[in-house]
């Protein structure tokens, strides 16, 4: 992965904040009021030869340790001093590919969030960002960021669903789905009973004569039936050796139980559980 290079790094002579090799540390605080600050560890996004990454080379800044109150918008605003920001994406884990956006529906998948990929419009943005001294302030007078009660109330208001939007989304999805299914069915119907070039005919669920479904449960059922049929024919305790063996088996069970019991007793004795009071 990106970061797994060398953990031991020299200290940057100009920068007083220690940071691992290849990374620059930018102090970040929520607002003026806070005393201590977190540190963003940033570096230019780059990958080893041969690995693919959808993030644009040179223009992408890789940011670690994004504080919990920091949103995509505020990050974008904070870094815009270094150059125009094209996009910001917050993620749970470092990831090489851009997440497939189209499948994310706000109704069906909750939003994830402490690493960020910031794509600048120009490569100069990245170098400017690496030289940032900070401390960055997430919430300022001009751009306050909601937290605490403010945030929760506005989150609650956002969570009140809009039934119309939901309906529209469901309808479009189902339309596409129905279409897909219809196409598949039409295709299957077309193939039904038609041999392929080698002469094999594909048997499907929708055929005229239904066949056993290809599921694990079904095959297990068949096996079980076979086993039962076989066991019915077997003779139990018929021969003397069988009788002897079943007796021995019983004894072995008793021995095993005895060993188990002894172990339990040993344990209880170790815990001094036999003192009645």
């Amino acid at each position, binding site marked *: 992965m990106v970061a797994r290079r060398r953990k031991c*790094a020299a200290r940057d002579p100009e920068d007083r904040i*220690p940071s691992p090799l290849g990374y620059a540390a930018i102090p970040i605080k929520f607002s003026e009021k806070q005393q201590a600050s977190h540190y963003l560890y940033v570096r230019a996004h780059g990958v080893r030869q041969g690995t693919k990454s959808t993030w644009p080379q040179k223009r992408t800044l890789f940011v670690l340790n994004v504080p919990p109150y920091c949103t995509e918008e505020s990050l974008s605003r904070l870094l815009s001093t270094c150059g125009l920001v094209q996009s910001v994406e917050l993620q749970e884990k470092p990831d090489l590919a851009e997440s497939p956006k189209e499948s994310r529906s706000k*109704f069906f998948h909750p939003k994830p969030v*402490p690493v960020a990929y910031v794509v600048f419009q120009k490569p100069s943005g990245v170098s400017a960002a690496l030289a940032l001294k900070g401390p960055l302030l997430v919430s300022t007078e001009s751009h306050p960021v909601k*937290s605490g009660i403010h945030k929760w109330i506005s989150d609650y208001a956002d969570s009140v669903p809009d039934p119309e939007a939901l309906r529209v989304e469901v309808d479009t999805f189902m339309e596409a*789905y129905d279409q897909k299914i219809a196409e598949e069915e039409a295709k299957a119907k077309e193939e039904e009973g038609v041999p392929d070039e080698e002469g094999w005919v594909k048997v499907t669920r929708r055929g005229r004569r239904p066949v056993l479904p290809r599921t694990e*449960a079904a095959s297990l059922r068949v096996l079980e039936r076979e086993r039962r049929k076989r066991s019915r024919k077997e003779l139990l305790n018929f021969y003397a050796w069988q009788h002897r063996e079943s007796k021995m088996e019983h004894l072995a069970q008793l*021995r095993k139980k005895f060993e188990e019991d002894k172990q339990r007793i*040993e344990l209880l004795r170790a815990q001094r559980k036999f003192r009645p009071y």
Partner: protein
Amino acid sequence: MGPAPAGEQLRGATGEPEVMEPALEGTGKEGKKASSRKRTLAEPPAKGLLQPVKLSRAELYKEPTNEELNRLRETEILFHSSLLRLQVEELLKEVRLSEKKKDRIDAFLREVNQRVVRVPSVPETEEILQDKDGLNQRYFRKRALYLAHLAHHLAQDPLFGSVCFSYTNGCHLKPSLLLRPRGKDERLVTVRLHPCPPPDFFRPCRLLPTKNNVRSAWYRGQSPAGDGSPEPPTPRYNTWVLQDTVLESHLQLLSTILSSAQGLKDGVALLKVWLRQRELDKGQGGFTGFLVSMLVVFLVSTRKIHTTMSGYQVLRSVLQFLATTDLTVNGISLCLSSDPSLPALADFHQAFSVVFLDSSGHLNLCADVTASTYHQGWSLLWLQVQHEARLSMMLLDSRADDGFHLLLMTPKPMIRAFDHVLHLRPLSRLQAACHRLKLWPELQDNGGDYVSAALGPLTTLLEQGLGARLNLLAHSRPPVPEWDISQDPPKHKDSGTLTLGLLLRPEGLTSVLELGPEADQPEAAKFRQFWGSRSELRRFQDGAIREAVVWEAASMSQKRLIPHQVVTHLLALHADIPETCVHYVGGPLDALIQGLKETSSTGEEALVAAVRCYDDLSRLLWGLEGLPLTVSAVQGAHPVLRYTEVFPPTPVRPAFSFYETLRERSSLLPRLDKPCPAYVEPMTVVCHLEGSGQWPQDAEAVQRVRAAFQLRLAELLTQQHGLQCRATATHTDVLKDGFVFRIRVAYQREPQILKEVQSPEGMISLRDTAASLRLERDTRQLPLLTSALHGLQQQHPAFSGVARLAKRWVRAQLLGEGFADESLDLVAAALFLHPEPFTPPSSPQVGFLRFLFLVSTFDWKNNPLFVNLNNELTVEEQVEIRSGFLAARAQLPVMVIVTPQDRKNSVWTQDGPSAQILQQLVVLAAEALPMLEKQLMDPRGPGDIRTVFRPPLDIYDVLIRLSPRHIPRHRQAVDSPAASFCRGLLSQPGPSSLMLVLGYDPPQLYLTQLREAFGDLALFFYDQHGGEVIGVLWKPTSFQPQPFKASSTKGRMVMSRGGELVMVPNVEAILEDFAVLGEGLVQTVEARSERWTV
């Protein structure tokens, strides 16, 4: 089974090498020696965890030796199972005297004997005792003088560490002298000296139960009454005299019979343990070990016990005998002679309720077991012994796996065994009671011991008054006192408190009415006399006019406390015992689950109202027209719907001015400038729709179809029934009569669709996935559990109270987050389904105590907790589950709960608790239990009952204090605030056109954010019921400096340490983040320890 050894990680033992024990070599008599040798050979199983036993084939199938076969057969015949045999052997090893100690005791006895013989100027007994000494306590006074003389001389002897007096069996006329050696053996042995007259000094015919030996004239200091009324018999007094004369012969009898066989000795030892665990032998007039030994002798003489029996069989036979024979009706006798001059059993039955004659045929061994003489035909203690014996027999017959522990190792103190407890204090009030009840003959017989004299009549009175509400009444008297020979003996009034335990009958508790006879019947007068002013004439619906008593009780909790009203009323009316002397302990814990407004109810009524509303809603759902698919099932899935929500919902109606409104979505929103609105939690209801070919077979598409149904459901409910609804993709919230329900549409096949995996060959197999398990849990298992527990509540009305108290306590200890609601409900259910060795609790108080006991003693490492709902699991299945559990222990959660629906996975404990949290709970429960029991058993009143509910805060590294303004459930706090904020509700519930603010709880939102952001650095603890403080514990492991890693930089900073760059948590910044994230809610962030300065 027992507390797990503290501080050990559960999962740590998986990789340990297995200890192989040498196979089955201890056989027959070698057994003990071999096992002691083995103890040194084989170490205890790794870290206190049971391992599945693995024996090699050769060991399992080798030819058995004769000895081995013999032992196996013996085990089968003499014991239940090999486990029981081993357990009994271990217990006997613990209680049996070692040879070394026996020698020391014998040596001391010889010394005592020499000293006593050498006491100077002791006259021969013939010189002291004279004819007719049996009369008027003359014998007892001489006996006491003799003893005082002995004491005086022996006290000067340097051999004795302590010399003091006590009473023989609590009889205050018969002191005995206690001698203890000086030095390290002082705790080892106590020798009791009982002076006895020569065996044939008193003529037995003078001491028959029908004879009088304490003359009224002497006792009352009056001249003989002129009316010629006969002197009352003094059976008690006579017994005390007789006991002394036959003492020696009894001892000889016991030693000849018992020493004949080891099994008998073992049996007596086990029986004594059994009695002691049940506190039956405690205090004056207990069911002593002597009595039970004599019972063994009796059973040997009637050939019900054979000398070849094992100790376990002896125990079982005696219990069987006790459970099935009523000695109050058919007395038994050790006397074999058929001499016609001997008194008849019937004479004894007239004088004593329980009759067990000794070998002389003159003495009733059970005379002291009877609380009162010839007054009533029953004895409390005997009833209790029978009750316990029956419970024990049931337990033995049920073949429960840990029967041994429940039978012999589990203590049953009164406060934990009885639903309610009442203390009578001060005891001097009983003297007046005796006069009021006209108990002079009893006083005369008891030599003035008014406590003993009053006990029988008082308990009879209570038993009669409590009637159908009562299952069993028991009394516990303080232990027999000891006092120094230089002091005066204690008075009756100094003997502390008389404590009565009430085992209630839940069916009887629901009625507020005592129905008397019809007004014109002759019994009506008796009824009026019994109930006094409480009895009134009432006309009933069937036209009958009857005497009746009606108690005031509106709620379930008040009905549970009707016995309190009965007891105080009857004691004041008939025995002149004022209310101030009766300390009734039945409902002090109720306060913790009482609603906010009504203090008279513990919430059962509110829960019933909510469930009724849910029933209405489900009818509406069933009858809904216009749904494309029909509803196939409506099931509740919320704690309210199984009666276990700590604070049940009340119907609400919002005050609109308190909220922001979102008109277009007809919803209310919280307002910034107002305190946080009331917390309304929707009650989840699962609505299954029928299966149909119309359902898509693709997970994403099923989700969409369900969402469409949610929308449609909201529409239809609004159109057809005018209910306020709000639909989302996963649920529809419905406001009905002030309650909010959350309906989740479910499709039965959906979990299966989520499970389907297609192999490369095209084979479709089913594999559990996180999503499918969750869905299955929420839509299938949760409704099943909810309905099963709903059923349990109908059977056991106290279940709701117990489960809610238990949950309340766990949450108040800030541990609520670690335990799923359902897991605690199941633990509470286990108390009702598997109450052994108790009976199912009938009051929240006793249930809660047993919850604490279970939590603090259960060995979660080596046992699953069975909750056999509806008794669906057979014994064989349980054995199978147990062995499966042992084999898979390392993969299972720390706490495993098995129900018939969930035999392997323990779904409700999958997400917690962790081993540490569980350990913390065990520790807290072990501390809380004795504290609470002591409080409740304190006759001066329980004091502050909330003490055990307050969490210890000194263990946390950081405390985040919250502002009450934004804690919606602030009033639910353990220490309810005197004033809190208005939460935007109108007092009169009514319809609302806007949807309420649902599930908005700032502390919970804050916690979610905290855990998300700092979950890997710290643990957060909070009481959701109005807690004002969040406790934070740093995780020690994450405070170890770590090398830089891109994947774990959250909340950390790089530091240079010894030339190395390492990552450490950025604590200062995190503490400030705590405040930032909870802006408005957080008052202060207190860092209390400096532990993080690594």
